[in-house]
């Protein structure tokens, strides 16, 4: 098990280094000359002299590897530079926005789990009966309609028509409900189908036949065997989904004017505020890597075939 984890961790570290190189490259190759941008922002006339002075100040006259190393050193200390637009350090802005996004993402993740796990199990157990047909129908609808449409519909029903939940204002629990629901609806729908499929697949396995032929109760077979085995593919998928939840919050945050990372990113992209975009890319990469590392660890604990390094992997 340690060998497996070390290998995984090493790979994740490589991913991080790769992403940081891409992010670094982005700031240096796509945006044109940053010195000119900064000068334009501060309102100084960009003469040749001024540009050279600013290039020296920003360290742009040094070699690329040197620049990368100074940049990465700063980043590791939490210094992502200063926003071109507002002049506020990106770090400060992040400190305010990361918790907002985390609230949203973790909330949506918990709602997804809380709905999809019981519904998926129920749907699988009641295969082709009324509960299954209804759940699957609802799940198809949740999948077919894009998330932002759900957001608009939920806003209309719960805020405009019924006036139950606020659409704007303070970051209260009630304010969190609609964006969390919007974010989790498509994911819940998908996981109902995934969990149902994984359970049904397990129910076809030879060991289920063996347990049934010994006359064990379906309850023992399901809760004592099938669910744990079906959890393996679900956990590895969840790792990926939690990452895409962070990304998916971009649209929902804009829709509900939630002051999270996503809406910050959208504004920054519109303003070509590269330090912010770079910080976002790096942060997302770190989040992805951490979450997948966690999922791998969980799989390791769950599945002896991975832990002990043998057998057929599912």
């Amino acid at each position: 098990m340690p060998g497996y984890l070390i290998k995984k961790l090493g790979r994740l570290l490589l991913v991080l280094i790769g992403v940081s190189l891409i992010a670094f490259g982005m700031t240096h190759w796509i945006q044109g000359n940053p010195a000119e941008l900064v000068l334009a922002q501060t309102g100084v006339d960009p003469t040749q002299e001024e540009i050279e002075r600013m290039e020296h100040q920003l360290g742009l006259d040094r070699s690329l590897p040197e620049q990368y190393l100074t940049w990465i050193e700063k980043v590791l200390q939490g210094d992502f530079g200063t926003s071109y637009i507002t002049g506020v350090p990106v770090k400060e802005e992040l400190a305010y926005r990361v918790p907002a996004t985390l609230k949203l993402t973790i909330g949506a993740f918990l709602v997804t789990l809380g709905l999809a796990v019981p519904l998926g199990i129920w749907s699988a157990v009641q295969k082709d009966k009324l509960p299954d047909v209804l759940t699957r129908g609802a799940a198809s609808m949740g999948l077919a309609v894009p998330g932002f449409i759900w957001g608009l519909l939920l806003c209309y029903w719960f805020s405009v028509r019924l006036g139950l939940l606020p659409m704007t204002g303070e970051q209260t629990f009630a304010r969190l409900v609609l964006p969390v629901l919007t974010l989790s609806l498509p994911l819940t729908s998908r996981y109902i189908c995934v969990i149902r499929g994984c359970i049904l697949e397990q129910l076809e396995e030879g060991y289920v036949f063996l347990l049934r032929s010994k006359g064990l109760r379906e309850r023992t077979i399901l809760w004592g065997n099938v669910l744990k085995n079906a959890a393996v593919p679900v956990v590895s998928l969840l790792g990926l989904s939690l990452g895409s939840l962070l990304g998916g919050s971009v649209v929902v945050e804009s829709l509900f004017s939630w002051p999270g990372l996503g809406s910050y990113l959208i504004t920054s992209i519109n303003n070509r505020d590269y330090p912010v975009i770079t910080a976002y890319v790096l942060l997302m990469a770190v989040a992805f890597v951490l979450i997948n590392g966690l999922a791998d660890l969980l799989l390791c604990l769950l599945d002896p075939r991975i832990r002990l390094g043998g057998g057929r992997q599912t």
Partner: protein
Amino acid sequence: MEPLLVVEHFSVQYQRMDRPAVDDVSLSLNPGQVLGVVGESGCGKTTLIKGILGFFPHCVAGVAGSVRLEGKELLGLPDKERRNLLGTSMDVIAQDSGTSLNPMKRIGKQFSQILGEKLGLSYQSSMIYARELLARVNCPKELLNRFPFQLSGGQRQRVLIALAFALRPKLLLADEPTSALDVTVQGQVLRELELLRRDCKSAILLISHNLGAVSRIADQVAVMYQGQVVEYGETHQVMDTPSHPYTKGLIACVPSLSLPKSQRLYNIPQGGKEWEGGCRFASRCPERIPDCQRQAPQLRPGKKGGLVACHCCG
């Protein structure tokens, strides 16, 4: 004395098939006896076993006849009553030992789960019993701490046999218990089956395409062809003096040490066209007479004892 198992005019029809997979099969098995059922792949052997157990997949369109265990009709039995019979009154050793154990559970846990629910044993006492069972099939007790993927094929098959005999079933349905094993291990596993039969006084319905295995431990043999029993009698009589051309063909297919090396093995000719009525074997039969394609032969007492379904050799 009423036989332990009576199968009468038992038929199973799958959806979208032109003939039943098991067609009007009648068998009976006395306590402690071994009945071998032989035939080629697809002749309905496994469907017969699943039918006796009462496991009908969704694609079954119709079931007819009667299956009685100790005088009790099994067809149409409510699930709960069937569960009480399964394991303790009848049990099965499935074809594929590779998938018959839960890949994510230690062998010991799998024993204790079954013994706990069926015999009400505590974890400690079920471990003691499991150790004893493993010793009887020549397996070290260390296996209890292993996962199925850490066992060899022969060990897995022995664990299945140990599990089957743990509940001392009156009837054991063995579906090709040796066909996935090396020849050397096949012999040992058969010996263990026989030993346990003597210990537990279980009757065994042994399904196999391995004539050697069947002739070694079976008291009686039923030969199946395309869902029907074509010959049925005492093992020595069927094996030494077969009546039905199909049985003769099957026996002639087995290589023998006494044959000259240059002689080619007998090959049952392939049938030319679809079955349109009459004897199912007619199109492949070297001894067919015009009657064969007109009228289906009934199973009736043959000249050499036993039952045989053939127009020309009865």
